[in-house]
């Protein structure tokens, strides 16, 4: 690799690692997300130009911050507005207080404030996800657009509109106080989890998993956990993502076909992710009623620790779903609980619960509800009804790998000799 190429690689690594922290510091100082973004990008561009010539500085992050600050003052001077003049006065006063911009002082971590601004309830759910990926994960607008399968211009407009709202409505740049935090944190966790689930089960299109997006979600989860180490739900969310993502390699076969949990090669599960996830679950569960992420992580941990589907602690999973149903009831939780009951107490017991859920309109349109019913009917030897349920699931499924799996399952139930049960 050439010297220039190596320096560019360093810039890339520093950029990925430091972008969120750099941006958060600049926003705290400038109170202007657009200006912070412009000068951070400027500093990166300068680094790309200068580092191959001058060498990589000893404190790359501090160098970037100093450069970005100088650019900010230049830009504010050019603006010539009353507000800009006030900002310069403020900036210079602060600089005098910190011993000048040349000092490579280690800078603090303002990312928690940036999380709460990007995930503010006054922004749309879509905008929160886009802002968090752009400003905390450091993805480019193009990458964010690709992640959500929307045109780049649409994503650019979404970001611009959201930034305008932050600026004009003065959405504050602060961590909510202890009284507000319990009400505000779920929105932040939700954004990270949306990124993760989007990576995991793309609702349409040819691919099922997009590993790089899952990795971004886990990275964001790690940052949040590091910023709020004592928060049990932030811990639970990171655990959940690690424990689900640990099965990624076994979830598809070499041809790209989806492999069900029952048929996965468990030796391909990522042991280090499982160990880390389990350690985190152990910290997220105790200390009063666990939250929904900690409970889902505990369920994922029981799956991950079992040697086979049959050896899984299904009764324990059913009790965890009972707790989950109490803290965060939803039709999908009820569906998963019914499936677990089907494993713990037999397919007939599971089927009774699933049939009780049939009236729920959301589940009636959900392909996995019909697939779960088909599986239980198949185990009971009711092949015609199982085939009908697979057909209904096929009519509702959106992505290709799941469609292919359901097609194979339907073919198997139709072709099986009479009386065959699984």
């Amino acid at each position: 690799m050439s010297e220039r190429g190596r320096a560019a690689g360093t810039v890339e690594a520093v950029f990925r690692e430091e972008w969120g922290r750099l941006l958060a510091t600049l926003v705290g100082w400038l109170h202007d997300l657009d200006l912070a973004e412009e000068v951070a990008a400027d500093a990166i561009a300068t680094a790309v130009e200068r580092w191959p010539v001058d060498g990589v500085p000893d404190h790359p992050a501090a160098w970037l911050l100093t450069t970005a600050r100088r650019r900010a003052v230049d830009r504010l001077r050019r603006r010539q507005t009353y507000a800009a003049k006030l900002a310069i006065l403020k900036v210079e006063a602060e600089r005098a207080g910190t011993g000048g911009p040349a000092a490579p002082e280690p800078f603090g971590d303002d990312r928690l404030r940036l999380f709460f601004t990007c995930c503010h309830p006054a922004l749309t759910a879509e905008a929160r996800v886009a802002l968090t990926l752009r400003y905390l994960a450091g993805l480019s607008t193009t990458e964010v657009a690709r992640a959500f399968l929307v045109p780049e211009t649409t994503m650019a407009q979404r970001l611009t509109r959201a930034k305008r709202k932050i600026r004009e409505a003065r959405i504050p740049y602060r961590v909510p106080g202890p009284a507000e935090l319990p009400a505000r944190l779920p929105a932040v966790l939700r954004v990270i989890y949306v990124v993760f689930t989007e990576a995991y089960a793309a609702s349409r299109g040819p691919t099922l998993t997009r590993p790089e997006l899952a990795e971004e979600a886990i990275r964001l989860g790690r940052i949040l956990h590091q910023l709020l180490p004592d928060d049990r739900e932030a811990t639970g969310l990171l655990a959940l993502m690690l424990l689900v993502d640990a099965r990624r390699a076994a979830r598809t076969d070499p041809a790209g076909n989806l492999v069900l949990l029952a048929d996965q090669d468990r030796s391909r599960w990522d042991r280090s992710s499982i160990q880390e996830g389990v350690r985190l679950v152990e910290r997220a569960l105790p200390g009063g009623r666990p939250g929904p992420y900690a409970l889902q992580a505990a369920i994922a941990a029981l799956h991950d620790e079992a040697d086979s589907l049959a050896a899984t602690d299904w009764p324990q999973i059913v009790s965890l779903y009972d707790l989950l149903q109490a803290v965060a009831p939803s039709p999908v939780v009820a569906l998963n609980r019914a499936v677990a009951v089907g494993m713990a107490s037999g397919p007939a017991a599971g089927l009774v619960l699933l049939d009780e859920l049939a009236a729920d309109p959301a589940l009636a349109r959900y392909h996995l509800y019909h697939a779960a019913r088909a599986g239980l009917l198949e185990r009971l030897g009711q092949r015609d009804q199982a085939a009908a349920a697979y057909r209904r699931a096929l009519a509702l499924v959106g992505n290709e790998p799941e469609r292919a799996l359901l097609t194979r399952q339907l073919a198997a139930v139709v072709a099986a000799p009479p009386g065959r049960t699984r």
Partner: protein
Amino acid sequence: MRYLLLIYSEEPASPPSPEVMDAVMAEWVAFDSAIRGSGTYVSGEALQPTQTATTVRLKGEERIVTDGPFAETREVLGGYYTIDVPDLDTALDWAAKCPGAKYGSMEVRPVMVFDPPPQ
């Protein structure tokens, strides 16, 4: 920064009973004195029902006057407060405390600020 807290609610088809009316009025009086005493209050008015509203438009030179509000919506503007607070979170806190949030909805809008011309 100044925010307008716009109070929207459905206009009742029939007047509420005197007991209900008294209880609701007591809530409004309590909120009104709290916000006026908080140091954030700039102004505020309650409006007469929309049956008293008149809409005016100019089509070229012609003045067109019609009875009622411009838009026919379920929830109508019933009043407002203007407050001066540091940020949106503080404005949202006041909006949530207002009885209007319970009996209808509150729209919180920042007031536009114009830079003075350069000297």
